[in-house]
């Protein structure tokens, strides 16, 4: 007993250290590419092109200044913000009543509608982008933010529905019955009782649809030309020519990615739920 105890403690210590190192490796691998991009955005071209990686360097804001003055990144950020915010508002307005119907009512075609929402999650955007391009062209919607807002509803309304439906299901039915006795009609029950109680789910689904709209590239690439370009499109547009403006690219990349990363940290507990169509809690 006396001989085995220190041995065991030593084993435990080693185990703890290995565990720590493995976790550290995970953290480093996750953070490094992001760290490398952000530092590159503060480097001069020469520091980026140095064959030996420059971990210590003289930081400069020139890349960000260039992005705003020479390439009008502000406009594309505004486009992205406008598209994302309007999409969020419309998705909530359309999605929350639908989620309420699915959570509260029995009706014909419920399974079909649910399947349709799931199928939207599985479908490659290129399938919709091909015909939508021609339709948008016919309606003179090409290169407008509204074309993007409309098409982003196809994946954002389902997100709102599956996050909010779960929350609505958890509201006790007795509340509805009490409200009916008070003379509330079913819209009033939804608007005055269910919706305020589902506020956390609304917030989470709002953040998710914001993230997905903000990040989207394929539709934006196909449906915009100059006026309605979103930030990811501009960020990828510098990737041609012989000598790439790396600092500028990384500065735009940082500005595109950073807000989303911050938002995701806020909802990190629900992140998995949002990404799995609410299947995993």
């Amino acid at each position, binding site marked *: 007993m006396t001989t085995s105890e220190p041995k065991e403690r030593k084993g435990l210590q080693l185990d*703890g250290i290995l*565990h*720590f190192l493995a*976790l550290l490796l*995970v*953290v480093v691998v*996750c*953070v490094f590419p992001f760290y*490398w*991009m952000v530092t590159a955005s503060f480097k001069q071209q020469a520091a980026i092109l140095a*064959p030996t*990686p420059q971990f210590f360097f003289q930081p400069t804001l020139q890349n960000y200044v260039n992005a705003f003055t020479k390439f009008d990144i502000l406009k594309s950020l505004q486009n992205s913000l406008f598209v994302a915010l309007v999409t969020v508002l419309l998705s909530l307005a*359309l999605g929350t009543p*639908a989620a*309420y*119907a*699915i959570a509260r*009512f*029995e*009706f014909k075609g*419920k399974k079909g*509608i649910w399947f349709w929402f799931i*199928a*939207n*999650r*599985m*479908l*490659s955007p*290129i*399938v*919709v*982008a*091909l*015909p*939508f*391009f*021609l339709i948008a*062209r*016919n309606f003179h919607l090409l290169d407008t933010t509204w074309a993007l807002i*409309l098409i982003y*509803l196809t994946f954002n*309304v389902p997100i709102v529905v599956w996050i909010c439906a779960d929350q609505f299901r958890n509201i006790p039915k007795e509340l509805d019955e009490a409200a009916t006795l008070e003379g509330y009609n079913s*819209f009033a029950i939804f608007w005055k009782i269910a919706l305020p109680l589902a506020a956390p789910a609304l917030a989470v689904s709002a953040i998710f649809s914001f*993230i997905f709209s903000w990040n989207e*590239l*394929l539709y934006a690439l196909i449906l915009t030309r100059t006026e309605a370009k979103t930030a990811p499109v501009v*960020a990828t547009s510098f*990737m041609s020519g012989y000598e790439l403006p790396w600092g500028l*690219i*990384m500065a735009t*990349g940082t500005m595109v*990615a950073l807000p989303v*990363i911050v938002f995701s940290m806020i909802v*990190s507990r629900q*992140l*998995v739920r949002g*990404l*799995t169509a609410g*299947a*995993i809690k």
Partner: protein
Amino acid sequence: MKAKTEKKTYSSGAWFFLAPAVIVLLFVGIFPLLFAVWNSLHQFILPKVHSQGSFLGIWPLFDAPFNWFGNYLALLTDQSFREALFRTLIFLIINLPIQLVLGMAIALLLHKPGNELMKKIGRVSLVIPLATTFAVVGLMGRLMFNLDFGVLNYFWSLIFGHKIDWLADPNLAFVSISIMEDWQWTPFCALILFSSLTMVPVEIEEAARLETEKWWHVLWKVQLPFMLPGITVILILRTADILKLFDVVYTMTRGGPGSATELISVFVQRIGFRVFDQGMASAQAVVMLIIATILSRLYVKYVYKEI
């Protein structure tokens, strides 16, 4: 009797709540799909086709010649389409197990007692790859895999003494986009499996640990059954996502060199918007639509047993 009338009012109420979403999604979601099916039956070369107004003001009309199932027949013999599908399948077969196994290892690390602070930092760090804009992940890849100044190449040369042109070699370009894809999505698997692990009742896990010293016995007999639903979700969703994969490939390699990294979504985008054969691309899109429908059926069947 009363119950019956109540039920009836309930169902009409449902459609009152559903109608706005359904109508809008019919218009922006289903209508384009029908239009794609229609286009897939035409010989639709974008620069040669002229707009002929529209039917009832919504359905665009074009003078593209109708050619029945010509595009689909051509698809059957189209080597490049088959290659793109096959390439996507290979990508899936290689990367899905990597993401699943690494994800499980990370989930077990996060589940293991001890080092609480580090585990918390680990969980937050996992969000970073997952949340990084897909297109930006490709940009990071371009920066890190660069031949002359890429930081990965620098570390590679420290170990092996030479540098590699990752993005110029067909196989290595494939490996490069795989690495970035695994970097982004392994955390997704890890977080799902981690939340499955927290579902294992503590007593059962502790009892199992008393019974056996080997961690893989605990994993196999106790933890894995609880992870099965999560694994099912991962298998189906990641398959769908890899069929959708566009942004990272587009920003990192544009499908090149040659067509070495041209996965199916990138391929269809090229046919539709760079070769301008909308009819052919639509036929390809319909095939992808069928695959997506099958995946959704599986998802509803195995993941959502009830709604």
